[in-house]
């Protein structure tokens, strides 16, 4: 009896492909649905209320919230992708496959990180396109990205960090409620208070000081700086901190892959 030889990189690419196919199969929920809420934000805040809201960081409000909404969509979807995939697998009982097959913890971590980032990217780019349409209709010109390289870095760093956080939370959770609680009570407030809709320059010094402790402030402002060239945060500081966030989230996710719960719900 002959047993075929196997290559280890193929295990990683298979898991990545499976995770991408999963969110594409339910594209209505994963890719289309986030665009509806973003379009409403743009219409209500960016168009209807824009004249009543003061310029933020020296740019008009529609300009200001487009990069914020791109960041919101990217981070939220990256988190959701990894966490919902793991939770559904726990429900179906096939998560234990990952323990049985010859995949290393790093391969599992990066497969989920890249899949979440790809989904976040797709939604983020779609949001940017919708934002451009709104901007062109409103002002008759395109909103030009100031620095593509920086934008790519902050999008990748944000997507990877939030995918890894989603993976960690889902592996830690013993039921649906725990994941939902972390998403609702921790991640969502951090995203919204991280400067998606407002500049922290306008805040009371006390709240400003608290905002500096919010890691999302750096990701969101990094994305905004890449788009518009304006930011509440020094971009080089944001770059270094996001590097640190990626490393921290990776170590946490790797640990959770090793010790987390694979038990069926």
């Amino acid at each position, binding site marked *: 009896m002959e*047993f075929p030889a*196997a290559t280890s990189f*193929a295990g990683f*690419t298979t898991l990545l492909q499976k995770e991408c196919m999963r969110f594409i199969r339910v594209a209505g929920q994963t890719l289309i649905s986030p665009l509806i809420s973003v379009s409403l934000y743009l219409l209500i805040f960016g168009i209807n209320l824009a004249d009543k809201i003061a310029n933020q960081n020296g740019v008009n409000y529609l300009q200001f919230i487009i990069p914020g909404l791109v960041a919101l969509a990217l981070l939220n979807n990256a988190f959701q992708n990894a966490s919902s995939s793991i939770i559904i697998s726990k429900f*179906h*009982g096939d998560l*234990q496959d990952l323990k*049985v097959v*010859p995949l290393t913890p790093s391969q599992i971590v990066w497969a989920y990180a890249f899949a979440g980032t790809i989904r976040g990217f797709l939604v983020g780019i779609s949001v940017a396109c919708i934002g451009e349409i709104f901007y062109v209709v409103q002002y008759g010109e395109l909103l030009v990205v100031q620095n593509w390289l920086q934008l790519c870095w902050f999008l990748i760093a944000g997507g990877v960090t939030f995918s890894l956080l989603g993976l960690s939370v889902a592996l830690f959770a013993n039921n649906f409620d725990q994941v939902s609680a972390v998403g609702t009570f921790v991640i969502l407030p951090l995203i919204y208070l991280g400067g998606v809709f407002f500049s922290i320059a306008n805040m009371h010094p006390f709240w400003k000081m608290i905002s500096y402790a919010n890691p999302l402030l750096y990701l969101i402002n990094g994305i905004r700086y890449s788009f518009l060239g304006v930011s509440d945060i020094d971009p080089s500081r944001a770059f270094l901190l996001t590097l640190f966030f990626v490393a921290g989230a990776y170590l946490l996710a790797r640990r959770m892959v090793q010790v987390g719960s694979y038990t069926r719900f």
Partner: protein
Amino acid sequence: MESPLLIDDINKSFDQVEVLKSLRFELKTGEIFGLLGPNGAGKTTLISILTSLLAPSSGTAAIFGNDILTQSLQARKKVGVVPQEIVSHGFFTVNQVLNFHSGYYGLRKNQERIDYLLEKLALAEHQNKLVAQLSGGMKRRLLIAKALVHSPPLLLLDEPTAGVDVELRHSLWRFVRELHKDGMTILLTTHYLDEAEELCDRIGVLSKGELIALDETKKLIHDLTHRQVILTLTQPLESKPALPEMQVNKNIVKVNIAHQETVGELIKKLAIPLEWIQDVSITEGSLEDAFVSLLKQHTR
């Protein structure tokens, strides 16, 4: 040649309750080994340890010489596992699930093997259906196909026929025999003792986490059971039973005898005239009898 599976002093406790106690045994290449035991004996815990789902409290095991703790990846490549519980894969079709599972083992282009398994397990016509649309029996067969997709030399079957109909059970037996014929080593846990008796070369019996018996199936049955001789007489036997394990019901006499004892010797012992004997039937002991006897001895 390395042993397919060497279990070396494995202990496992949950909250100070010992579930496996100093378990040691070895599988021989190409055999079907049955691991039997009542519910809670520790069979699934052992399978979970062997497949990296649980860590042992102490001790270890080696799969073809690869330690499951220190050479886990190499060990995992050589084993296929059919879990006890049926799992679902809501988003994907049967063919996709098998391709993904194959890919995890590094085999991205393995459609020939997948087609072979789909055919063998009567799943070919369902290969484009979502797993959620399959019946319980089909899902069970898919689990077996998944476990075999990378052609592992060692297969762990954790109650593979639990809850399946008789026809499917028998077709799975035939398939297991084919795998055995191809040289695969198989560890089978089951509650169906007829299944173990039918398929297994050797049997290990677990009770409360301890291995209380390990031998060739035939020898285990031979050593732990009696033959039952049933004599139908032409007239009722009025005298008292001459042997302690003898049951008399009018003209029917049932006696358990040791395997080496002959019916002639028995009839002499009972002092029944030969012309009274209308019919003689002999029932050999089964694995079920051996299992019950063993558990009785152990719980005494």
